[in-house]
Every structure is written in C-alpha cells, then in structure tokens.
C-alpha cells in the first residue's frame, strides 16, 4: 500500500435541517501515517469522518478512500475501512473477547482467525486479562479500549477513529496511542479526530486543522509550527502593564506574549511589572489560535 489512502477535495455536507456540518474540507492521508483531524467541538470533524466512511453522503466536493470514489464505489470502500465512532458504547452483555471475535466474524473472518487477532490486540491494549469479563463490569476506559481493539483487529487498510482517547485516563491514552503507532507501521493508514492539541502533536504524522467546517491548515506538526514565526511564549498571571511584545493574546486575567527567540522571551519576562511569569515553547495550540484568528490579540500589551 503506497501513496494516499484518502484524497478529499472541497467536501461539504448539508444536513436536512439546513445546517452545514462541513463546508469545505480538503485533506490527504497517506498509508503508513497517522493523520489527525484537529478542531474544537462542532468544527466538522465527525461529519468529515462520516462522509469518508460512507455513513454520510457528501453534498459537495469529491473524495477517494482506498482508491475508490465515495459517491460511486462506497460499497467497495467499506471492505477497506473500519470505524470506531465517537461515543461508541459496546453492549453491556458482551465480553471483550466476544466483542472483537463477533465483529471480526461479521466482517467475514473465520472463528479461528478472529480469535487469533482478538488475542493479539486485546493483549496490546492490556485487555486480555479481562477478556471474559462482561462489559458492564469494565471501567469506562476499558470499554472504550475494547471498541478500539475491535477495529484494530480488523486489520483494515484505512482505519477511522473518532475521538478514540476521549474519556481515557493517561495510561489508557498511551496504550491506544502506542497501538495506533504500531498499526500504521505495517503500512496502514489511521485517521483520527481529536480536539486535544497535545495528543495531535504527540501522535500525528500529519495534522489537518478544521475550523467552522473548513480546512484551516494541514501539514506535519513540525510544518505547522512554522506557520507562526514565534518559538516561545511568556505566560503572565497578573497585570500586563509594561509588557513589550509583538503579539499578545489576552485570556481573562492572564496574558500570553509570543517571542521569536529565548532571549526575546526573557526580555519580555523581565518587562513584566507585576505578577508571575512562565516561559514555554509554542505548541499546536498556539498555531491553531493563529490559524483561526481566535483570542483577543494585540501588540505591546498595553
């Protein structure tokens, strides 16, 4: 599997109530990579996943998934994808083993193969020890990991996960991230959504920022970091009087001032008259704010 697993251009979906779930989403996702759709709640991430997984019929635009057109060949696409929907809830009467084996059998696996795959992925996600426990007796995080194990075990070339780490604790998130990285190493493609900038930065090979149903920016985390000219930020808790910076974002009683270098950040910090100061490197969150033009932005802090 080489090249692009997904190519979408100008995708849009208008629901029967007239609301546009996505307006103009364009993205490319390669095999062997994790592509993260990043954006706040209501940005259009789930609608985009819905269109790419053939749940929703696009109102406009075009897309190919696994080499097939989403409008013409959607039945063929389904053989090459697996979807872990947002807020999925596995049946309380299923055990983790039954959930994975049943899902694989309904995808055409023999029982023997299904059990083999289930064992591998339940072990990877640290669920093998509870494989015979009913879902109702599992924690919320374990149930979520079972749903992730179901789709991973399918070995689908293109895997979609809508907010797979929502509701997981730190340990659970890392288990899922590790599993997803292992999964793409075999040449498969993972597309996942999140509104967690840190998660995107950690796991993504490519990030697609979606804002108000439109692709706002796309690229590797490193490429996106170059969208803004700043490398450091000075977080001031207290008064911003006397703060000298080219770009300042006010967050209520806090102020974030951006600097191009460490020296500049130190200068800004020393210009703070009152309040506590912390210096940090910029991250995707700062890029996102820049790209979507959010926050109360100004200069020189006055």
């Amino acid at each position, binding site marked *: 599997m080489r090249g692009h697993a997904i190519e979408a251009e100008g995708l849009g979906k208008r629901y029967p109530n007239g609301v546009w779930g996505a307006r103009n989403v364009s993205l490319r996702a390669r095999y062997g990579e994790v592509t993260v759709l990043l954006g706040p709640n209501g940005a259009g991430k789930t609608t985009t996943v819905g269109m790419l997984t053939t749940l929703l*019929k696009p109102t406009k635009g075009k897309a190919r998934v696994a080499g097939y057109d989403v409008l013409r060949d959607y039945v063929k696409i389904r053989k090459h994808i697996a979807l872990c929907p947002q807020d999925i809830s596995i049946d309380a009467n299923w055990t983790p083993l039954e959930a994975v084996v049943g*899902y694989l059998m309904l995808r055409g696996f023999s029982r023997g193969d299904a059990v083999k795959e289930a064992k591998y992925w339940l072990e990877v996600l640290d669920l093998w020890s509870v494989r015979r426990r009913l879902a109702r007796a599992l924690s919320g995080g374990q149930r979520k990991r079972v749903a992730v194990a179901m789709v991973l075990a399918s070995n689908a070339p293109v895997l*979609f996960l809508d907010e797979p780490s929502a509701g997981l604790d730190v340990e659970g998130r890392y288990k899922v991230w590790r599993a997803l990285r292992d999964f793409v190493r075999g040449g498969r493609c993972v597309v996942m959504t999140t509104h967690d900038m840190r998660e995107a930065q950690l796991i993504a090979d490519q990030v697609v920022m979606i804002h108000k149903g439109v692709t706002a920016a796309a690229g590797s985390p490193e490429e996106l970091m170059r969208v803004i000219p700043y490398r450091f930020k000075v977080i001031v808790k207290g008064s911003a009087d006397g703060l000298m910076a080219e770009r300042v974002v006010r967050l209520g009683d806090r102020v974030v001032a951006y600097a191009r270098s460490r020296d500049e950040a130190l200068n800004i910090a020393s210009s703070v008259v009152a309040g506590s100061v912390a210096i940090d490197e910029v991250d995707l969150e700062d890029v996102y704010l820049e790209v979507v033009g959010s926050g109360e932005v100004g200069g020189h802090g006055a």
Partner: protein
Amino acid sequence: MVREGLRRVWGMTYLASRWIVRQPIWLVQSVAVTIGFFALLYVWGGRAGVSNFVVGAVIAGMWGIGINLVGQDIGWYRLMKLYDMFVATELTPVHFILGVFLSSMVFEASTLAAYLPIAIAFGAVRQLITALAVGVAELTLAIFLGLVVAMRVSAATNVSSVTNTLTNILQVLPPVFYPAYLLPTPLRYAVMGLPTAAAAELVRQLSGLGASVPTIVPIASLCVWVVGAFLAANRVVKWGMA
C-alpha cells in the same frame, strides 16, 4: 463468497444473541406466558380453546419477534453507535437483519418447545404447521415494520415504547387468540385490516377452525401489508450514505 456471507450472518447472530445467553430468565418468562395462555384457553375452551391457543401463540409470537425484538435491537444499535460501526464494514443490510432475526429466534424456539407437545397432545398439529407457514409472511412484514419504527423514531430510546405498544395491542386486542366469527359481521371485515387478525383468520380457515370472512379477505390484507411494509422499509432504511 457464500461462506463469507454465512460468517457475516453468524457474526451478527453471535453478537446479537449475547444478551439472551446472559439473561436466560427472559426465556423462562416467555415459556411461562405461553403455558399460562394455554391453561387459560384450555380451562375455558377445552380442545377448541387449545386449537385457538396454538394459532394465537404462533401468530402473536411471530409478530412480537419481528416488530419488537428486531426493532428494539436495531434501535439499541443505533443508540450505542454500533450501527455506524457495522455500516462501515462489508456487512450488508440483509446480513445484518438476518443476523438479528436469527438471534431473536431463540425466543420462538423456546416457546415452540413449549407448545409442540401441547399441540401433539391435543390434536392441534395441523393448526401448528399451518400457523408456522402463515407466520412466515407475518414475521416478514413485522420485521419490515420493526425496521421502519427503529429508523423513523429519532430518539432511539423511544423505539421500545412504540414497538411494545404496537406488539401488545395487535397481539391481544384483535381476534388472534379467539376466532373473528365471535365478532359482529361488519367488525369481522374491519379487523381484517389488522395484520395479526388477518393472519390468524387465514390459519383458522386453512386448518379447519371455521371461517369468518371469505378467504380472499385475509390473503389480500396480508399481501397489502407485506408489500406496504416492504416499500416503507425500503424507503426509510438507510445503510449509510444518509
């Protein structure tokens, strides 16, 4: 190809049947109600009562399985987002519905196990076989209607309230456990518009339990219901690309 198709159906059946495996007490309830109805009809109607019980039990059972169990199961899958997960696979609507239906047949099998000996003991085997044959049409249209309800009710948590009401009213109110000829003549024709009453009437006529209306009436009614329910299901059931 065929083997994979069977695996898909079996996979769906496997998942959909877990709750019955975990809570077999539902089967006890189902069998107990069957035996209770048999006792009631035998006490008041003797052998004729038992024959009518066999007709009613099969027709009401098929109706309940189709509209209630299948409709509810699909409603729950929608609620839990498993429906979306299943759509984004090789599974087809036919595999999905067949799988859910087969899992529901555990109930029918358990009640059949209860009334088969009753039918044999009281000479109602003819009624049983005829009811099972007509019940296939009844079940088919009930599954279609269950699908319509499951897909049309926007809040999936409300599916049960609609399907339960439809099930109970059409099982016990019209002439299903009792013959339609006990009703006044104009009402006999009116109730033939109800699918359960039409199916029960057809079974009674074909198995020698008497006729309330010309045979063509229940047949026409069932045909209209099956076609209408199929068309309605075909219109509302969305397997992705919504």
